[in-house]
């Protein structure tokens, strides 16, 4: 019976992985479509309209196109590193998906150190950038890779520090526990007491995923495309995928830690008290709505703001965000000491 149990567990985990991965891929397809439509409408135009009704199938058409593109590898590129860089990128970001809780009690790997695991995976993602920049053997890519990796490791510090306030308040690193702690908290969201932490986290998340206003490493006008200039076809698609899944992971962390995760308002729990399935479905929906609100915010900022120059970006990270997050930790710790 024990052997059957372990095999059953393994099968269930594999099914969970398959489901989450396919949902993540679909998410990227629709996140790209959503972005193009949102930014298009903000710029007084329509966005994709041709492929499929209202342009819904646009991302799928793009994937098919990228699939059939010629796989160009620069002659003087460092081939092993060139091949492995996008793989590291996508592996690191997808690995982070395993600890995100989509509804109560669900996570592919419900480990006790969920948040720490997320930080570790995003640090691994920095390798992809620097390897890609180096292996392309081109000055533009090299510059882009250098800039991007320095940016990523600087903002990782402030990202980690901004979440320490949440960890102190929840008393745990497990993401499910953090959401449950928010349910028991007076304002239901950690957003209100941790507003400074939220602010620092949002900015660091934008810098981690190389999005405007921190997208200098891939700014078209300056470096053509930065570290993935020399990548084409499916390899480029992998980087692209890694970027959008990175956005998904960062938005999930923001939703889980600050916006209440899958927690529904109290009256809904009392309404559907019997059926656990309906509650789970509602929790997933709630999570997704909050997630897409965060993604919308990403797109909104992209279509509005100019981009920072590189040294201003670094000084913002080191001189403003890190002191702010340390200040936040001090305040949270002091208050918690007095409350207990």
């Amino acid at each position, binding site marked *: 019976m024990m052997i059957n149990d372990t095999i059953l567990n393994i099968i269930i985990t594999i099914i969970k992985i398959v489901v989450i991965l396919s949902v993540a891929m679909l998410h990227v397809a629709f996140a790209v479509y959503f972005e193009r439509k949102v930014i298009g409408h903000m710029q007084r135009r329509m966005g994709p309209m041709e492929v499929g009704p209202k342009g819904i199938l646009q991302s799928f058409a793009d994937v098919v196109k990228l699939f059939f593109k010629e796989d160009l590898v620069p002659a003087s590129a460092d081939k092993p590193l060139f091949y492995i860089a996008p793989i590291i990128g996508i592996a690191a970001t997808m690995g982070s998906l395993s600890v995100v809780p989509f509804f109560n009690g669900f996570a592919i790997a419900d480990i006790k150190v969920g948040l720490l695991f997320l930080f570790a995976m995003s640090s691994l993602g920095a390798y992809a950038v620097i390897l890609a920049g180096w292996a392309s053997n081109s000055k533009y890519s090299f510059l882009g890779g250098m800039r991007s990796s320095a940016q990523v490791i600087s903002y990782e510090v402030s990202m980690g520090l901004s979440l320490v306030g949440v960890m102190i308040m929840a008393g745990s690193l497990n993401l499910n526990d953090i959401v449950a702690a928010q349910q028991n908290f007076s304002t239901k969201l950690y957003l209100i007491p941790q507003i400074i932490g939220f602010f620092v986290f949002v900015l660091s998340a934008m810098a981690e995923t190389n999005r405007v206003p921190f997208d200098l490493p891939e700014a078209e006008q*300056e470096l053509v495309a930065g570290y993935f200039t020399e990548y084409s076809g499916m390899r480029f698609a992998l980087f692209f995928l890694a970027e959008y899944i990175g956005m998904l992971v960062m938005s999930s962390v923001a939703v889980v830690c600050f916006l209440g995760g899958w927690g529904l308002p109290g009256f809904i729990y009392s309404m559907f008290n019997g059926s656990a399935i309906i509650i789970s479905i509602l929790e997933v929906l709630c999570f997704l709505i909050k997630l897409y609100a965060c993604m919308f915010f990403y797109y909104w900022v992209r279509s509005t*703001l100019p981009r920072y120059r590189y040294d201003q970006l670094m000084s913002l990270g080191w001189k403003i965000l890190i002191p702010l997050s340390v200040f936040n930790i001090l305040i949270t710790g002091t208050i918690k000491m007095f409350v207990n």
Partner: protein
Amino acid sequence: MPKAEIDKDRFKKENLILNMGPHHPATHGVMRLLLELDGETIVKCTPYVGYLHRGVEKLAEDMTYLRALPLTDRLDYISSMTHNQGYCYAVETLLGVEIPTRAKFIRTMVCEMSRISSHLLWIATHALDIGAMTVFLYAFKEREFILEQFEALCGARLTVTYPRIGGVRNDVSQEFIDSVYDFTNYFPSKIDEYERLIDKNRIWFKRTRGIGVITADEAVSYGLTGAALRGSGVNYDIRKLFPYDAYDSVDFDVPIGTHGDVYDRYRCRMEELRQSTRIIRQCIERLPRGAIMAKDAPKVIMPPKKKVLTSMESMIHHFMVITKGPMDTPKGEVYVATEAPKGELGFYFISDGEGKPYRMRIRAPSFAHIAALPKLCEGGLIADVISNIGSIDIVLGECDR
């Protein structure tokens, strides 16, 4: 263990040479910039131009003054009305032709519309280069209106060939006047919209304040003109100092900057948008009736078709003007400068009495501005090169001719 000697030659430090090549999303045409970098700081910047050279000045030597007019459209293809106007004004000065008042007002009006169109394209690309992509689409919507009006007026959106030697090509319709007047009513609120997006934006300040500073003396010595010069505090606007067409009959202000950085040049051009709207309104309100082509210079300007078919002298004049160019052209040289949107546009003609110019020399503002680019860029970072190129407002068609 013997101490290992460091081979000093192997650890030589070199500056990185980066080529922002002719093909580049941000260089506004085909211009090549060779940057020598120490880390991110630019040690040396060398611009290479000439990728768009088409031999306009040489071509004009073999064409009559009338035939050479469309060449000037293609110089600064973004604001072709002003270049046509500059050319026509120069030729009229050479030939001693006085144009009727109605033609002066119409020319002023369409040239100010062209200035607005050029500045809209400037703000669109400048903001896009710095990262604010929405301003691009907002500005192009207004520019689209202006181009449609040009098309209704003379059939062409971009390379118009509308101002002619002696006046303009055809009269403006009432519909045109009404829609342009409507435009001047709502356009200032659109300028407010663009300014709301970027004017007080902290990131915009950081990217443009204190970047690309050039003092007034340096600007004058480099030959900068137009908004690039006025941003440094020099009050030099040819429309005020040496007025031509109807500029002395309309009121407008000239915006002057103080710091000479990218932000002040940006503010100058945004303010010029408002002043141009003012000028257009006044031109429409004060538009006199009258002819649109000079009537008293038969040997120089082509006579109207009706007369050609009925009067013998007109037919002869028509024939001679078309084949040999203006008759009895005085010998001599003339240099005339006008205020194009990019700066001071100068035409220098040497005439030897024939109907074709012996030599036509175009003083293009973009050429001088690109020459000042090393001064603006050296000592800054790569990202500042983009801000600087945007702020000096170049177009390579004009620079390379």
